[in-house]
């Protein structure tokens, strides 16, 4: 008879461990992703192929100087957004398909699951940004006069992409036609963010001395609002 421990397990103390649980979920997702590269491949392949197609078609000379800041910002954000949409739903869809979602529901709290998955999605977006943005700037010879503003805009924009889509990924995990539905549902919510980031990147490229970076503030507001709303609504989506 294997000996059993009868001492009572120490139950968790309250909110203090929300973060530990979220980090545990995040690391588990990262470890699984590292071993299978399931979502990362989807995102990076999409981004790299689109980028090559765009830079091949347009090249660094086709669009004249004055138009570049705006048009390149539009192209960059289209690549970033649609690459994100091709991979960010994977973390929930994979749990649903593998059947691990029930066990997770029985052991973790909804808010911890949301934060964990959000952190995982942001890590994917980080990888996407780090790979795609510099390559885009090089390939397209994108002249940026205000790099600090530009990078902050990219970072807050990616934060927004993660914040806006994580809860949608949870909603569509079990629906039919998942991939398409994920994009159809996410895009209307991401449009305001995209418009803001495009404008921000354009001004950063021109080197417009816009003190206060209004676009970054708007994007940060978007991130905060989407995360707060998602934290409220996630348990409704997560539980039956």
């Amino acid at each position, binding site marked *: *008879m*294997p*000996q*059993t*421990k009868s001492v*009572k*397990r*120490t*139950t*968790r*103390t309250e909110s203090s*461990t929300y973060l*530990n*649980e979220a980090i*545990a*979920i995040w690391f*588990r997702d990262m*470890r*699984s992703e590292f*071993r*299978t590269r399931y979502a990362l491949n989807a995102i990076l392949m999409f981004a790299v192929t689109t980028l090559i197609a765009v830079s091949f078609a347009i090249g660094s000379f086709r669009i004249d100087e004055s138009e570049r800041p705006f048009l390149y910002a539009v192209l960059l954000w289209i690549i970033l957004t649609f690459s994100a949409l091709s991979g960010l739903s994977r973390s929930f869809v994979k749990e649903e398909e*593998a*059947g*691990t979602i*029930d*066990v*997770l*529901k*029985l*052991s*973790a*709290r909804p808010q*911890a699951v949301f934060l964990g998955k959000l952190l995982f999605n942001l890590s994917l977006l980080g990888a996407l940004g780090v790979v795609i943005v510099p390559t885009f700037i090089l390939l397209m010879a994108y002249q940026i006069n205000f790099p600090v503003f530009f990078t902050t805009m990219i970072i807050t924009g990616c934060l927004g992409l993660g914040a806006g889509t994580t809860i949608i990924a949870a909603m569509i995990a079990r629906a039919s036609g998942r991939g398409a539905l994920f994009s159809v549902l996410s895009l209307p919510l991401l449009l305001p963010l995209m418009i803001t980031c495009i404008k921000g990147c354009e001004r950063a490229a021109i080197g417009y001395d816009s003190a206060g970076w209004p676009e970054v503030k708007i994007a940060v507001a978007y991130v905060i609002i989407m995360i707060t709303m998602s934290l409220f609504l996630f348990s409704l989506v997560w*539980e*039956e």
Partner: protein
Amino acid sequence: MFTLRVSDIGKHYGETLLFRNISFELHKGDVLAITGWNGAGKSTLLRILAGLVRPSAGAVEMFFNGKPVEKESRRRFIGMVAPAFSLYDELTGLENMEFFATVRGLSDGGDHCLDTLHRVGLSDHAGKTCRDYSSGMKQRLKLAQALLHEPPLLLLDEPGSNLDSRGITIVEEIIAEQRTLGVTVIASNEKREADYADRVFNLSE
């Protein structure tokens, strides 16, 4: 002291009715078996008890040391095994257990996980990734995951599936031991598993 009270539970999907007016009450040491034809809704009933599915009618109440346990914190009191469940294939057995231990907020992760793995006879497979586990070993790992936090309520949906004779004895030991901790509810069609229980509830009557 743990009590599970189920009153008038019913479930229907669209127009198809699964079951209605199911009521029972279980106290520490009780083992209930739920039987019925395929599609009678055994698994759904267990999922309702676990809080994974919302019943169309009726209520599930839990009391720990006399105090009612509301829905949000029932997670801590429930351990469940079901054929539809599976654990993370990319992780090893031990990594799976440690993940669930941290996510459940159990403090002494390490050795307790190994103990539980030992209890289901998986201690020498702890380092292998679950993808290489046989279906019997996966079933044992699911049992280990359900026992990790020593839940007063143990829900077993066809616990013996894919298990060899040694696995079956482990399940029997677990059920015997659970009598000292709290309540067990087994959903199964096999007579052997129904006989573990002292009360039987047939959904198809």
